[in-house]
């Protein structure tokens, strides 16, 4: 993935609809760059709601575990972060690979494991949906 990922319009609209309905916000607020947990104020039950709505709209099932899997890429906890659960170089390199908008130089404080999900944006979910859709079609 590169920083200039083009999002599939249909997928983006589906994600924006699901996010807006789950969070009770306008679809226009759910811009691709918005982080679900930070900018849009989602909580874990909201993410679950988003994913089930997305499944109803598109027929494609994405589990919270799939997102966690994408973010951590199967790297064991002890290799992803240090003993204080601060994400280390291995973890940051992986995040830069899977989240095109992520740039470690922009971090104002150390990134903790708990904070990783906070990086996930509407656009990232759209990419994941697109990937899943084409995988299902293949």
């Amino acid at each position, binding site marked *: 993935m590169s920083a200039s990922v083009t999002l599939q319009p249909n997928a983006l609209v589906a994600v924006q609809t699901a996010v807006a309905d789950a969070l009770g916000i306008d679809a226009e607020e759910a811009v691709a760059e918005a982080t679900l947990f930070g900018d849009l104020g989602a909580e874990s*039950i909201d993410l679950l709601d988003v994913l089930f709505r997305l499944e109803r709209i598109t027929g494609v099932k994405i589990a919270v575990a799939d997102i966690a899997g994408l973010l951590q890429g199967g790297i064991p906890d002890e290799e992803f972060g240090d003993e204080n659960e601060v994400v280390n170089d291995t973890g940051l390199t992986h995040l830069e690979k899977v989240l095109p908008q992520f740039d470690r130089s922009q971090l104002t404080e150390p990134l903790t494991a708990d904070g990783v999900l906070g990086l996930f944006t509407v656009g990232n979910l759209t990419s994941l949906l697109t990937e899943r859709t084409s995988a299902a079609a293949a």
Partner: protein
Amino acid sequence: MRQMKLKNSAALVTGASRGIGRAIALALAAQGAAVAVNYRSRAQDAHVVVKEIEAAGGRAVAVGADVSDPVAAAELVSRATDLLGGLNILVNNAGISDDALIHDAAPDAWWDVMKVNFGGAYHCTHAVLASFMAQGDASIVNISSAMGERGWIGQANYAASKGALNAFTRSAAVEVARFGVRVNAVLAGFTPTDLVSEVLRRDGGKGIKRQIPLRRFATVEQVAAAAVFLAGPDSGYTTGELLCVDGGFSAQLGIGRP
């Protein structure tokens, strides 16, 4: 013919080989739902319920499983879903009792009762949730007891298990409401079934009847009617409700007079 309210619905009723569960299975089927009749050990009785539903023109299957075991409960849900081609109603009815004074009972006499009455409902609810939440329109009905809200000598473990089920009903209801899944409970009062035969044996239940405002016991059909209401579209705006079917028993203080 009156219109059936649960056409195109498929229901799993746990502990449906006899008693209240059997009545609920029959009542759901009478409204057009396809029903999975769960049993633990009474396969024969469950098959009789299935035959009865089929004879009335309905669709039913018998599925054995001990719902106190989470793995068995998950398999039950998946089998029922396969056999019925879907599932959108779960009735957690399976229950046992092991009455004794706390003082006399074995220290762990609560565990089996809790594992079936609360654990069974928890396991089955857990097992249906992913599919119910994805569907966005489904209903869970827990068959509980007025005992869960008030005390009764000799039924501490049973009452505690039903109290847990009632608390679970409320919490689950608010948690999954936004996913279009409703969770309610029927709080049955005294209903003559095998489960309470001990309680009624002493004097045919006369002493208890005297304390019930309606002066009679519930029939299993009356409890089933409340369950069908909570399972179906008529209760579409009701969730987290503990619906008493107890003859006014829990509405009253003492015996209601000096």
